[in-house]
């Protein structure tokens, strides 16, 4: 009973979000009380749907890059050949988290110029850490008996990695990706301070013209996207974990 209630909530969140993105002016009465007399209540300097898609594209690109690099690093660090890099990569992942996103963005501007690129770099760096950490945990906490069995069955190192270790670590890796996506969705809005086309543009326009309706719109769209994507990825994780015959991990 509870599951269906959650499903209804999720479905209606999605419906409201899509309706708002496709026909924002239908929601004007909702935002009207937040603005002064003649100010527009709905963001008008750009297409909301387009900005949302660009926002999602930026997050997707950065997360895809982060996933590939972080997994490669974690796999390398857990192989015998890369064992030397393990302590360093752990402390690097830790240090990386102390760099504030605004600082990363601002420092990337002189090298990459204004626009989407510094945002991509900042999101990529931020996305690396959760995925790397979770992949590392997933690969280093496998039951030794399973690895021994795989070795006993005559599997080579590569076969063990692809057929045993990665499938077993997959739910944890996915959890890392989910965390990374949710952080990126919110952080991408800061990219608009360096002229990236993201939903942050709406919020910043609102801050500059003292238009609370804009700020709320931008914030709500990003928040709803984050909730829906978080839910969707959690569902995929449960599916994968069930298929792998593992107890579901949060």
């Amino acid at each position, binding site marked *: 009973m509870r599951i269906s209630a959650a499903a209804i909530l999720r479905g209606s969140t999605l419906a409201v979000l899509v309706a708002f993105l496709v026909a924002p002016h239908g929601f004007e009465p909702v935002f009207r009380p937040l603005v002064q007399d003649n100010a527009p209540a709905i963001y008008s300097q750009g297409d909301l749907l387009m900005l949302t898609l660009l926002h999602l594209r930026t997050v997707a690109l950065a997360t895809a890059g982060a996933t590939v690099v972080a997994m490669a690093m974690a796999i390398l660090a857990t192989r015998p050949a890369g064992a030397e890099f393990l302590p360093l990569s752990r402390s690097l992942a830790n240090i990386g988290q102390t760099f504030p996103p605004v600082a990363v963005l601002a420092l990337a501007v002189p090298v990459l110029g204004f626009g989407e690129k510094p945002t991509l770099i900042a999101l990529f760096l931020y996305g690396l850490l959760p995925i790397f950490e979770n992949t590392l945990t997933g690969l280093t906490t496998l039951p030794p008996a399973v690895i021994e069995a795989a070795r006993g069955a005559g599997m080579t190192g590569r076969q063990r990695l692809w057929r045993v270790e990665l499938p077993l670590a997959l739910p944890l890796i996915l959890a890392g990706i989910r965390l990374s996506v949710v952080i990126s969705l919110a952080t991408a809005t800061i990219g608009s301070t360096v002229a990236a086309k993201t939903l942050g543009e709406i919020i910043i326009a609102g801050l500059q013209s003292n238009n609370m309706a804009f700020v709320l719109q931008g914030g709500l769209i990003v*928040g709803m996207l984050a909730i829906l994507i978080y839910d969707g990825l959690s569902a995929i994780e449960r599916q994968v974990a069930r298929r792998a015959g593992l107890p579901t991990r949060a």
Partner: protein
Amino acid sequence: MTIRIDKLGAVIALMVAYGGLVAPFAIFRANRIVPGEARSLIEALPPAAAAGLAIVLAAVACMALLRLPVSLRLAAAGLALCALAVSIGLSARFLTPDGDSYARVAPGSGVWILLSAFALLAADAIARLGPPPWIRLLLLAAVLAAVGAVLLSGLWDNLSILKEYAGRADVFWQEAGKHVTLALGSLLAAVVAGLPLGILCHRVKRLRAGVLNVLNLIQTIPSIALFGLLIAPLGWIAVHVPGAYALGIRGIGAAPAFVALFLYSLLPVTANTVAGLAGVAREVNEAARGVGMTGTQRLLRIELPLATPVILTAIRIVLVQNIGLATIAALIGGGGFGVFVFQGIGQMAMDLVLLGALPTVVLAFAAAVILDAAIEMKAPVFNRNKIA
């Protein structure tokens, strides 16, 4: 005898070769806004200093390649970092024409690459040595003291970032104070509110899911939106609640930034308090009950001390995150180092951006090191209690 090459050392040697030979060592500008001209290591330093630095760089790169004792590698990395710090100051002095107050000299990408290479070497050595927490604190203090000493000595005074600082020294320390107050104050408020809330959620199971879900929802609101959304309600409070204005509550400025940081901090503190209390072994609680402890006594003497490492982990997350997020306060007039970052972006003056960004990174990094050490120092107590 075969010489075994260190794999990380190979990466570092490559970085040193590229940073030292290919990438520009310094960037010279005739004034603050014209495009810079690159200067290689040889052009950027007096001949003797250039030769000296080149020898140090080459020697340390070779030491990184060989499998030497780890403490020796750490010392080598330290030596190279010191040599670089001195050289970049010398280079700024050397490149600035006498009496020219418009010329700007900034470290080039080569310096940043060299610094990262040796920082990597040092980080690797420290990670392999695995020093106890108090040694790490001592190392941090030594590094900060060294940087402070160089700053005070005036060696770096000709660098463009310090010229930006010289023009606004008063404002810098004002904003620094605001930044730290925002980050620490909101953390303190979050602990004062989140700890009891976590305890309540632990005791009253029905509340738990609801409270944590609400706090989770807040996390999904992007920071700039949350900062902005608080302007209206706080502005209303400032006008309509007697005494609020006198307390410094305004629609724009530090108040909405403080509240936003507080709201973001609540989830980690509350959730980790719940997790920490839930992690206390049932046998321990039973034993405490058996010796006749009341609920409050158990909470204060058994449960909270055992949950401390988990709660401290939350405080680490929150503090590092708040130091970073406080930069965004500048967008709504809340002050902090973000003021320089956004001014710099607006004026395309990257030295000004650095003046805001570097102290933020240093603060966040120092906070992380200090709290990591604190968590580790607390952990043995945790284990002792667990055994007892």
